[in-house]
């Protein structure tokens, strides 16, 4: 069965790949992912904010105690190769590149124009085959309009597109007043792919201690629904390729994603739960399903259930919502 697909200009044997996750921290795991047939390796993001935060933390916790007391001008060894900032990440790109043959897609979340620019360039120089820009940003300030936020994101994307030659994907969240419009603007900025969607960190509340507690929830299949809907809406309306990220746990989930329009399907939670080898299970399942249903190739079903091609497009629009509510009442 021909499962091949094209994503970010790469001809891939199939659309399944690990999404941005800590799985890539360990080289052995990366190799296991490749052995399990990963079509590409997507790295987790290099967070400029985290780098700056760590530097700031180091300044207050380490540097401010230096040169203060005669007996101890410092409290830590000063290794020459102490890697602050992006060094460790860039090193990991190099190591992964050296370890695998499949394309390596690095990821970046910047906060300042200089950061976007410099880190994107460094990532390219480190040998990444493509770059996924993670536009995660929680707009919490009331004085910041949606337009300002969108403009800033687009400016960053344009900056990076101009600076690097490798293909650029953009990973976005679903929370846009007009997602289709924003996607089109990304498209016009020349991005090579759009990844749907980022999952926001959603902390919990401890009702005993009256504290907000960090809580990472892995996705489940229902998480996929939102992706399916927007893949379906965007497919065919943007030149950029589409990738699905979030909620793919079974071969059926992957099939839905491709039918909705995803040329690439990123998997994280299922791999974290079941190990890298689960990727092979998904690929086999996908293949079997296509064979059982007598598809000629994966391409045959790509976008088949998109807004443009599905038999009942209105179901993807508002009516969907109405009907679901009614069915629940009944």
């Amino acid at each position, binding site marked *: 069965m021909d499962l091949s697909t094209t994503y970010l200009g790469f001809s891939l044997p199939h659309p399944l790949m690990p999404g941005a996750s800590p799985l890539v921290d360990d080289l052995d795991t990366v190799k296991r992912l490749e052995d399990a047939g990963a079509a590409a390796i997507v790295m987790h993001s290099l967070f400029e904010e985290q780098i700056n935060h760590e530097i700031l933390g*180091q300044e207050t916790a380490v540097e401010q105690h230096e*040169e*203060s*007391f005669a007996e*101890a001008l410092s409290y*830590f*060894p000063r290794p020459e190769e102490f890697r602050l900032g992006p060094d460790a990440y860039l090193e990991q790109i190099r190591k992964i590149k050296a370890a695998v043959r499949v394309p390596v897609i690095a990821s970046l979340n910047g906060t300042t124009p200089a950061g976007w620019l410099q880190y994107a360039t460094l990532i390219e120089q480190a040998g990444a085959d493509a770059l996924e820009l993670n536009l995660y940003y929680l707009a919490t300030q009331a004085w910041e309009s949606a337009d300002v936020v969108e403009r800033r994101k687009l400016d960053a994307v344009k900056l990076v597109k101009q600076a690097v030659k490798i293909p650029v994907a953009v990973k976005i969240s679903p929370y846009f007043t007009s997602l289709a419009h924003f996607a089109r603007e990304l498209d016009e900025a020349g991005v090579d792919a759009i990844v749907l969607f980022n999952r926001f960190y959603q902390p919990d509340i401890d009702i005993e201690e*009256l504290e907000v507690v960090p809580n990472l929830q892995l996705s489940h299949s229902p998480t996929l629904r939102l992706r399916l809907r927007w893949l379906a809406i965007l497919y065919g309306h943007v030149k950029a390729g589409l990738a699905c990220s979030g909620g793919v746990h079974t071969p059926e989930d992957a099939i839905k994603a491709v039918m909705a329009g995803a040329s690439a399907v990123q998997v994280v939670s299922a791999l974290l739960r079941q190990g890298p080898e689960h990727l092979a299970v998904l690929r086999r399942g996908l293949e079997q399903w296509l064979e059982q249903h007598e598809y000629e190739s994966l391409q045959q079903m790509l976008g088949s259930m998109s807004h443009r091609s599905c038999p009942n497009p209105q179901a993807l629009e508002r009516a969907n919502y109405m009907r679901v509510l009614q069915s629940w009442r009944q």
Partner: protein
Amino acid sequence: MAQRRMITVDGNEATASVAHRTNEVIAIYPITPSSNMGEFADEWSAQGKKNIWGVVPEVIEMQSEAGAAAAVHGALQAGSLTTTFTASQGLLLMIPSMYKIAGELTSYCMHVSARTVATHALSIFGDHSDVMACRQTGFALLASGSVQQAHDFALIGQSATLKARVPFLHFFDGFRISHEVDKIEELTNDDLRAMLPDELIAAHRQRAMNPDRPFIRGTAQNPDAFFQAREACNPFYLACPRIVQETMDEFARLTGRAYRLFEYFGDPQAERVIVLMGSGAETAIEYVEWALAHGERIGLVKVNLYRPFSLRNFLAALPPSARRIAVLDRTKEPGALGDPLYLDAVTALREARDEGISPFATEPLVVGGRYGLSSKEFTPAMIKAVFDNLQQDRPKNHFTVGIEDDVTHTSLAVDSDFDIEPDSVSRAVFFGLGADGTVGANKNSIKIIAEETDNYGQGYFVYDSKKAGAVTISHLRFGPKPIRSHYLVKRANFVACHQYVFTDKYDMLDYAAPGATFLLNAPFGPEEVWDHLPREMQEQIIEKRLKFYVIDAYKVAKDTGMGVRINTIMQTCFFAISGVLPREEAIAQIKKSIEKTYGKKGPEVVRKNFAAVDHTLAHLHEVKVPSAATATRRLPPIVSEAAPDFVKRVTAVLMAGKGDLLPVSAFPVDGTWPSATTQWEKRNIALEIPVWDPAICIQCNKCALVCPHAAIRAKVYPPEQLAAAPPTFKATDFKAAEFKGWKYTIQVAPEDCTGCKLCVMVCPAKDKSNPKHKAIVMEPQMPLREAERENYAFFLAIPDVDRAALKLDVKGSQFLRPLFEYSGACAGCGETPYVKLLTQLFGDRALIGNATGCSSIYGGNLPTTPYTVDENGRGPSWNNSLFEDTAEFAFGLRLSVDKHADLARHYLRTLAPQLGENLVTEILQADQSDEAGLAAQRARVQALRAQLAQIAAPEARRLEILADYLVRKSVWAVGGDGWAYDIGYGGLDHVLAQGRDVNLLVLDTEVYSNTGGQASKATPMGAAAKFAMAGKGVAKKDLGMIAMTYGNVYVARVAMGAKDTQTVRAFVEADSYPGTSLIIAYCHCIAHGYDLAYGCEQQKLAVDSGAWPLYRWDPRRIASGENPLKLDSAPGKTKLADYVRNETRFRMVEQMHPKRFAELLARSEIEVRNRFIAYEHLAKLAMPATTPGAPPTEKES
């Protein structure tokens, strides 16, 4: 041959640079001020830097200097080129091995940053008392007097020892040279190779122990052999001076820098000559140079090779014209006829005369004098005083210079206004905070000026005796010639104050020369700043016609995203207005160094720093100075009027930074100082202080428990006490069943708080509608200061609750007055809460022996000390013996206290007929196991005293002296993990084995904190520390488990931030246990690398992850058939990774070597789990009640 570079380094780096490149094995132990040499060596080896033979030297940290010296001895005996770095007590610990190394004629050069040996007090500063204690070991003593010389002599010593076979101790003045930054010419590897030919190294190796050509060394010799054999080494000592001179000559041919064993500088016909060594000689050269230019005929002999002392070379250096000679020693030998160099000089001249080789027609008069103990200033004015003394009819002998000795009148008068510094030297003084980066910026400025221009530069930095809110004073010089002024800047062309609050604290403009520039960082514009200066400052600005500039650096820092880091901003100001460099060039250089320093940290950090530089000039303003002072505000008094006389006369002068002016008579003769003095030093260093909300407070007293500075306290008291309360004093009803109807207050000491936030973080009481608001919140100090000062004074005056009525748990313990307060410990210190708790529970009857380290520094560093007294005048009696001997020292305290008690009981029985059997029996059989029992015993002793006054027998007088020992005393040894796990472990172990009632408190920061973060055996696996840069590869030593194996030792492992109830219980149990007790207390520390506000949270994570299990092993339980071990925590509640990743010490390993970190983390997890399993097994063992358990409670009396 490679081109030599000019570098700007301090003496330690200059020395280590040669030592590391010319040795193979380096065994060290950290000690101030030599620690940095070992650290440099360790860093370079960790970076793979090779010595000149292409091998990376092995740098190893030992458990003590004795261990380091022994390892050195072994490495030398096996034929390696070996060195060490040390000072002071460390050097003393090496002496036994040094005798051996010298006796075996071993080629070896060690490097010492000479430091004062502790006598009546410890001092970390420089003099020659340590080196002079090694005169008799058979080592050659080579003294360098500048950073360049330290660099050069490190090589000359290394080269000469290989030729001479006499081992060398190369030394230079601690701090003055070890920490002084200078521009020097760096020796290349080719230079080093040229001085260390292969054949000499081969010969050294040939002498090594080797089973392929065996011999025996280290025999025991008898009267028939030893003496002759001891004399057999003589030829080597006789040849040594010639070899050193030849080596110096060879060095001169190579580098152009010529040295002599004894160097004469001055008029060839000089009549007055002084003899001295070290950095003081350089300053003396500066003075002699000036005096020669002013027509004086004087000279000096600088001693470079002190041992072996070459009589002929010494004579050759002295001008035959000399009539009067003063020999200066930087050490004191009480009781000696004179100090060592003086005695040597006198002996030399006498021998010369007797042998007929004296160059003098008339024998010169020789006097000896002492200078510079503990880095006391040694200035041209003092040198002038020494020469002036030689001009007297009868020059004073055995004089001192640099102090006023109004007791035995040894001191010479010094003209303090005398100054000879040339105008070609720019001088600058900067007042800053440790935390604001002033010193770092100044070091960078010196680098810029010295390395980018032809100028020479010098930097010397004076640090605070307090760790929290530490003040730094930087002294910088720049000039066209090498700088020999090894003393503080007195008349600066540029004075900078980086903190506006200092204007009320320090007489900074005293340093300003007339016409100098004064730069002030203040939150005021150029128009209003004048009105915010105290009158004294205004007067000096006008009188000295200073150019006055102001900048609001904190605003610039905030606007440019720099937070509170003002270093770059103030550095830019310095260059902009000092004129040391052209402004544009200076700014370009600053930016270059910013890129170099911060480039790796990412573009944002560089951008912010650039922005700060660019914004600075727009905010830097010259202030128009009025013609007359306008301020009515004067500098506030240093201490309050209420302070005791001694504090006003002595302590306050020290606090004002004017201690040099105090005469000898002001000081105690034996190191005994009054305690309870920190209360007079109101430091006001917190920007924000805690504010209490009684409505939300649940009255748990946790805030008071964790406060490192005893600056937030709890009290419960009858309501009538509130009658005269100040208007803003807060009180609420006490909520517990006891003390019904009483009031409760949490009060902050606004001027003593350091703003660490531990109290706020630990506070469990949250406003239900607005949980952000706790029962304690931080608010700006300034607006609260006045009112809270009054409230605090009122609070302190409320009588303390009766100790006997309290339950000694977390809450109850905090109603006891802390007898350890406002110490100089770091803000957020993790050690001091334990020390404070100890004093609350037992302080009124505690004797404390304290190991050298953080706890001895914040516990006993002048000017003010934190141990204090209760309303009865009782409080901890504290002493610091040494670093290594604290367990034994405390053990000695116990022996003595017990002996006193024995004797008191003996007299009691003797006097029983007069005293009445009832009282005597009651006293002898008193139950003193709790506060009520102790109070009853104190009452009985009081009654006893009343009765004794009526009895005439001599036994009554004797008993009066000893009666207090009838009240049970609590004896404590307190120290850090460096003491307990490493250097003092042997003694600690011995004390554990004795079973006597000594309590050992280990404040475990898992690293040498006081000397700056070197690894100890308490350092956990995976943590980076100096000498364990890649993360410690072996697990933390389990000291508690070792102690438990004795069976009869009470052992507790506690972490106050994780489980305070267990901590308090362990302290109470340890005190009550009649045998030896060991408490190992987890202490968060700035050497862990995170914001210490989170200290308690990290402690909790340490415990919950199993890294720090809590337990109590109480042998008393055995007697009742119980298992002695009680586990007070369970592991696995959180992951080890969640604990360690929050701390830089672990995190930096992950950043350096992610794979190694992952491995160490995995191994640590296994280690932690296995250890806990072992504890669990131990805790489950059935212990038959027949085992002995606790020792007998009291000896039969």
